[in-house]
Structure formats: structure tokens, C-alpha cells
């Protein structure tokens, strides 16, 4: 990135990445030979380009002269000006990229990252009885008997998984607990939360900090705010305050 920036000598470099659905993001139109950015198109209605702003920039210090002393958006105000002055260049990112602002994408990003680790640092991945595929387990976590963990699971510090649990495509944050025989797929379990026995959770269910889900419930796409105790099933995706 630094090499490319020094080479073109302009005020700024934006890393771009190729995505399948560019219209969800801001699209960058640039010259293929030298990377000079022509313009930006926010959420285009027609196909313009499949490269989007990946959120990584390098600036030369003189670029600061363009920034006014008031609340100001880099992307909306400064960049278009820099592009018009031919000072902004795009560098395409090689490798995986994911915007992890949304829980659904966070989980997809987790899968991508674990896959990356498998290729470059496989020793960081965990293998033990009952694990399947790419899994990270913190050394302070405990896993019970007859569990099935993975693929694509991250288990944080001080997490407790009881016997017979099945966990796939989930991220379990510090101190959370999954009671026996529960089945979880595509979930994010917040710090110190507890998932009851025989609970089934799926479809990007997110538990905030210190949430308790009682035994034998079904949570489908629930977004549960912190410190909540859930005593009834959530059959359709919704936010529980």
C-alpha cells in the first residue's frame, strides 16, 4: 500500500475491494492502468463498477489542507474534491474483505477469517474431540462430552459448553455458557450470557451482554438486548428489548 502511494505521489490512496453486490455500498470508478479515481457513486441504481471503498486509506499530510474546521465527511465532501483534482488513487485489495457492521456479515467475515488462518497459521486453530472444521477455542474455555463444535466457531475466554451441545458458525464471547443438548447455528452469544438446556437458536440470533435464555426454547433470528431474560420462544426474527 505504502509503495503504491509513494509511486503515484498524489494526496491519497483508497483501498478498494471487489464485491458481488456493489449497490449496497459506495462504488469507486477509477482508471484501470494507473488507478486514478474519477468519481464515486453512492448506491448506484445501474451497474457502474463492482469495486467499493474498503475503508482503508493512506494520505499525504498536505491533504489536511482540504479539511475545513467544522463537522465534515471525508467520503462525501473531501474525496470528491480530491478526485476532481486527480489526487486520489485506488489500489485493489487482494484477498478477503468483509464489512462486519451487521451481525450476519460479522459471521460471514468470521468464516472468511478462519479460512484465511487455516492457510497461513493453521496452528492457531483448535482440534479436539467433537470439533469439526475451522474452530478457535480459548485455552480457558471448557467443552463437555459428546459435543459437536464447528465448523466456523470461535469460543472466547472462560466460556463453558456443557455436554451434548451442537454449535455451528457461532461466536461465543467471554464468560458465556451453553447448557447441555442445546443446538446453535449462526449466532453471536454475548458476554456472560447463558443459553439453556435443549435450546435451539438459529438464523443470526444475537444475545447481548448477560442475557439468559431459559431451557427448551426456540429462538429464530432474535436480537436480544442486554440483561434480558427470555422465557418464551421467538419464532420469527425480531428485536427483544
Amino acid at each position: 500500500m505504502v509503495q503504491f502511494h509513494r509511486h503515484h505521489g498524489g494526496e491519497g490512496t483508497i483501498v478498494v475491494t471487489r464485491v458481488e453486490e456493489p449497490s449496497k455500498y459506495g462504488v469507486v470508478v477509477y482508471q484501470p492502468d494507473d488507478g486514478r479515481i474519477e468519481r464515486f457513486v453512492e448506491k448506484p441504481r445501474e451497474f457502474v463498477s463492482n469495486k467499493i471503498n474498503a475503508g482503508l486509506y493512506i494520505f499525504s499530510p498536505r491533504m489536511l489542507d482540504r479539511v475545513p474546521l467544522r463537522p465534515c465527511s471525508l467520503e462525501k465532501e473531501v474525496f470528491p474534491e480530491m478526485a476532481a483534482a486527480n489526487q486520489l488513487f485506488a489500489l485493489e485489495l487482494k484477498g478477503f474483505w468483509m464489512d462486519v457492521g451487521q451481525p450476519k456479515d460479522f459471521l460471514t467475515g468470521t468464516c472468511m477469517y478462519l479460512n484465511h488462518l487455516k492457510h497461513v497459521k493453521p496452528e492457531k486453530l483448535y482440534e479436539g474431540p467433537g470439533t469439526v472444521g475451522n474452530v478457535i477455542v480459548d485455552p480457558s474455555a471448557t467443552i463437555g462430552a459428546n459435543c459437536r463444535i464447528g465448523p466456523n466457531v470461535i469460543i472466547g475466554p472462560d466460556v463453558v459448553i456443557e455436554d451434548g451441545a451442537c454449535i455451528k458458525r457461532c461466536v461465543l464471547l467471554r464468560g458465556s455458557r451453553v447448557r447441555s443438548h442445546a443446538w446453535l447455528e449462526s449466532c453471536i452469544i454475548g458476554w456472560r450470557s447463558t443459553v439453556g438446556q435443549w435450546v435451539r437458536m438459529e438464523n443470526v440470533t444475537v444475545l447481548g451482554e448477560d442475557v439468559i435464555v431459559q431451557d427448551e426454547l426456540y429462538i429464530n433470528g432474535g436480537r436480544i438486548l442486554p440483561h434480558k431474560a427470555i422465557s418464551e420462544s421467538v419464532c420469527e426474527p425480531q428485536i427483544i428489548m
Partner: protein
Amino acid sequence: MLKAVILIGGPAKGTRFRPLSLNLPKPLFPVAGYPIIFHLIDSCVQVEGLNEVILIGFYQNNDDLTRFIQTAQAHFKIPIRYLQEYTALGTAGGIYHFRDQILRSNPEAFFVLNCDICGDLPLQDMLEFHRTRPSTSVATILCTEATEKQAQNYGVIVPHRDSHEVLHYVEKPETFVSTTINCGVYLFSPEIVTVLAEAFQRNQDDFVNGRNTKRDMGALLHREMSFSFPETNGKEIIQLEQDVLTPLAATGKLFAYETSRFWSQIKSASSAIYSNRHYLQLYHKTYPERLAQSKSGASRIIGDVYIHPSAKIDPTAVLGPNVSIGSGVTIGAGVRVRESIVLENVTLKDHCCIMYSILGWNSCVGAWTRVEGTPMDPDPNKPFAKIDQGTLFSHGRLNPSITIIGPNCTIPDEVIIMNAIVLPDKDLSSSHKNEIIL
């Protein structure tokens, strides 16, 4: 001496109980571990002096029924006979047709029970009541209270407050008449045969004279307890409710005995779950040895649970409340079953969770799978509310109800089956919710 007649209907009845009644006559469906009709026979043999049970219906060449009758005779040690109607004769037509057999040996009286009911039936008390009626009485009908609105789905009785005579009887009125409903249990003196003969004659005359045939057929087709086939010509059909009880009202011959003990119709799978719960509870009083106990080293039991001795259950499973497990069932490690009926030879793989469901014979549920239905219990805010038999669909959507897995189905690992009805012999491959799976 006394006898009991149980009207068991035929294959065209019990359609709302499908897919569970596709392979097995509905009266043989087990609730709390024993067939519906077994519980009824059990109530009958508790009556002092009752020593014969007659089943009347139009199931033909049915092996399950034949086998049941043999087993039941051996168990109860009284003669149990099946008299097959040559064609559907209506709720009273069979009684009239077989009157000679029923009245052989001159019984003092005979009970008649519909087979699609369940309850803690006070037959001995009903007998005492019948014996103390005026000499004009020929029939006592068991009745109970319902809510105003629900009463319109049953036979409705207006009893005299003091004499308990039935002043008025009407079947499924469209307007409010009374909250007292017909339980489908009767006690008849032998003189009832005269009344039946009169009804028979009336119907014959009406038929011959071309009178009222449309009313008959229309009424027949809407009758809860009617046994009509469209093909029958109708002239031999006698409907107990319409042709016998209605004209008997206010003649000094028909009396009502009220009960507030548990009673329910069994029309749908939801009512089977409801009755399962109540019969299990009744076992505390009647057959406490049938209820499973929690023992160390065995699976944990919560509340009322029936387990057939041949079932194999992992010690880490947790069962109940209100669960019946049939013979030959295999339950794996860490399985949870609640408020459900598990029929014979079902296999439940490790960690699965079964709630408010009926699992059909020989089916298999995969590991970690969740099979869940929605209970349809009577409204707890209304006294005397009965279970709503309800409709399958409303506003084009399937109503949430008890999940039924038909016989010989296979449910894979890790899926959820919720509020679904799965027809027999189905091999599922994914989750399903709120669907009928053909």
C-alpha cells in the same frame, strides 16, 4: 345385570384425526398408554353388575380391532363382542338393529357410549340416579357444562332444575339455548326399544312418503356423531339425537345427570394430547402403578408419565410432564420429551427435543432435532370451557396446533419441525414450519 354398548363408528369417521387414523381405527388410538376404547371399557366394568360389553360399528375385517377385542377380553375377563352394521345405521340405528342381542338375558339397563369421548365417567353414580327416577323414565343422559358459545357445537340440553328431567333437547343450535351439553353417554332401560321402534317407523313413513328426506340428509351430513354414507338410502338410519332424544324431551321419560368431572371429545390430535394429560392425572387415583417414577440410574421423570415396560430409555433423557411412551420405543442420550404421545417403535436420537407432538408408529427423529407443536387447551379464563375442536386453516394459513408425525416417517438430524402435520411414510430432508407435508 347390566350391559354396555359402545358405538365405534367406521373408517369414514375420525377423518379429523388423520394422519393418525389412516392406518388404525381411531377408537384404538392410545392415550395415556391404552386405547381410547380401552379406557371406556374400563369405566364400564367398574359398574357393579356390568358383565357384558358390546361394540357396534361398521369397520370390516379389521385385524387391529379383532386383536384388540381378544386382548381386552382377556384383560377385563368379561365377554366383549363386536356387532358389525351391514351399512351405516346412524347413532341409534345399530342399537335398534341389534336390540335382540342387547336385551338377551334381560338386563336391568344398558349403557351406550360414543367412542370419541374421554372422561372420568361417573357411571355408578349415573346408575344410582337412573334407578331413583320416576317409573316413567326410560333414559338418563350424562351431561356437563360448557361456555355459551361452545355449547352450540354439541347437543344442548335444558334440564329441569329440581327433577332433572330433560325439558328440551336440540343438536348444535345456531342460537343460544343452554350451556348444558350432551356428553355422549346414556343409560337406557329396556323400554327404550319401544321408543326406537317408533322412531324407526316414523323414518320409514317419512321416507316412503318422500317427506323430509332433504332435511334428513342435510342434517345427517352436519351431524357430529352421524355415521352417514352418501350412498345409503337413509331409510334405516335412526339418529339418536334427533329422532329419539328430541321427541323424548318433556315426556317424563328422559332425565339428565350432570357431571363436573373431566370430560372431553376426542376429535383432533390436540384433544388427544389434552386427554392424555387428564387420563395420566387420573391414574394417581385409579392406577398409580402405571405412572413412571424417577429412579437413580434411570431417566429423569417430571410430572405424570407413562412408559411401556419394553421401551428403552437412556438414563440421561428427561421425560414429562404429560408424556406417554409406547412399546418398543428407543430414546437416546440427552433427549427431552414433554406434553407428547410417542407411539410404538419410535426411535428418538440423541439430544432431540419433542414438545406438544404426537410421533407416529415406527418413526425416527434425528439427533438434536426439535419437533414442536402448539397446545390448544381450553381457555383458562373461562370456567367450563371445553377444548375448541377448531379448523385446520384460518385466513388461508394453517392454524398452529399439535405437531403430528405420521407413521413410518424419518426426520433428519438438526432440523426443526414446528406446527406441522407430516403424512405417513415421509422422509424429510429439511426444517418445516406451519405446513402439512404430503
